[in-house]
């Protein structure tokens, strides 16, 4: 049960934004739902590589996990008014109570312009031998300037393959961002989350 829950935590908190930011840029990211607290900090050592740490706390059991993230931008296509990316993702960590190890690896692809975004992320989790696919299609009805608040409506679809069975979930998400601050709220009645992220 916990492993399913833990997989959900990783999925919800890893698909919210670009996995690598500007050179020497730092990212602080906090996510909370009724079940967990998740705090991340990362540094982009180059414009292609971000390394970071993450603390997860199960609010019900008080268990805490410490992880290291390693994100690599394999290829970026910068075009007039659009951008596309391919990233490789990995993370390793421990349960701070019993030293149980956890690890994941994945590939992330996205394309976006000022009003549309599509994203696909496929990840493998070694500790429960699970494959997870996350797909996002997003639309922003308004093109706004650098200093204004941008709003996005996101359809998030998730498929998990685990123990020879598939599970599916659809989640509508609202994303707001202004300059270097991003806020996301998602809910489908059964599952919900809240996320805040800043770059500096």
């Amino acid at each position, binding site marked *: 049960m916990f492993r399913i829950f833990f997989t959900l935590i990783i999925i919800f908190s890893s698909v919210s934004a670009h996995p*690598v930011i500007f050179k020497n840029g730092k990212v602080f990211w906090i996510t909370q739902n009724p079940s967990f607290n998740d705090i991340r900090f990362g540094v982009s050592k180059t414009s292609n590589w971000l390394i970071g740490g993450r603390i997860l706390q199960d609010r019900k059991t008080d268990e805490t996990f410490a992880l290291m993230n390693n994100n690599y931008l394999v290829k970026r296509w910068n075009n007039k008014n659009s*951008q596309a990316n391919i990233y490789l993702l990995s993370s390793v960590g421990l349960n701070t109570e019993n030293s149980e190890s956890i690890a994941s690896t994945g590939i992330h692809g996205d394309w*976006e312009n*000022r009003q549309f975004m599509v994203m696909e992320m496929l990840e493998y989790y070694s500790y429960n031998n699970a494959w997870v696919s996350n797909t996002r299609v997003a639309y922003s009805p308004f093109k706004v300037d650098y200093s204004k608040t941008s709003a996005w409506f996101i359809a998030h679809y998730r498929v998990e393959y685990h123990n020879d069975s598939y599970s599916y979930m659809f989640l509508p998400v609202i994303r707001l961002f202004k300059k270097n601050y991003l806020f996301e709220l998602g809910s489908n009645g059964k599952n919900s989350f809240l996320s805040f992220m800043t*770059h500096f």
Partner: protein
Amino acid sequence: MKKAIILFLLLSFGLSQSKVSIQDKEIEINENEAVMEVLGMVCSMCAFGIGEGFSKTDFIDKSKFSDGVSVDIDAQYVQLGLLESANINPEKIVQVIQDAGYDVSLLFILQNDKLTKFGTDKLGILQPIAFNLTSDRSN
């Protein structure tokens, strides 16, 4: 008489101004400024890194624009205020944009009353493609 004095003062201080075109938008460029077309700059959160990158350089005039940098995501350009005393290397400007994760396709620099246009060649390397454009004030 007053107008004549103002005109004389402007000419005496050598203030120059020109217009450049990026994605069909005409942009006014003044002495000690740079304007560049930036590819892939699609959101404000992405563009934030550009301002951060230039804030750490030693050639930006922070009295202009917002700490020396103006970003227009619609027209996909960035405008910089440059210190008059700085020895401007166009490659340094492009490096800041690349470190933020983007590419420069066109760069204009107006200094010493000379407008120079740079473009990237087939290998993606920045090359000057037109010099001293200030006589006709166009690109």
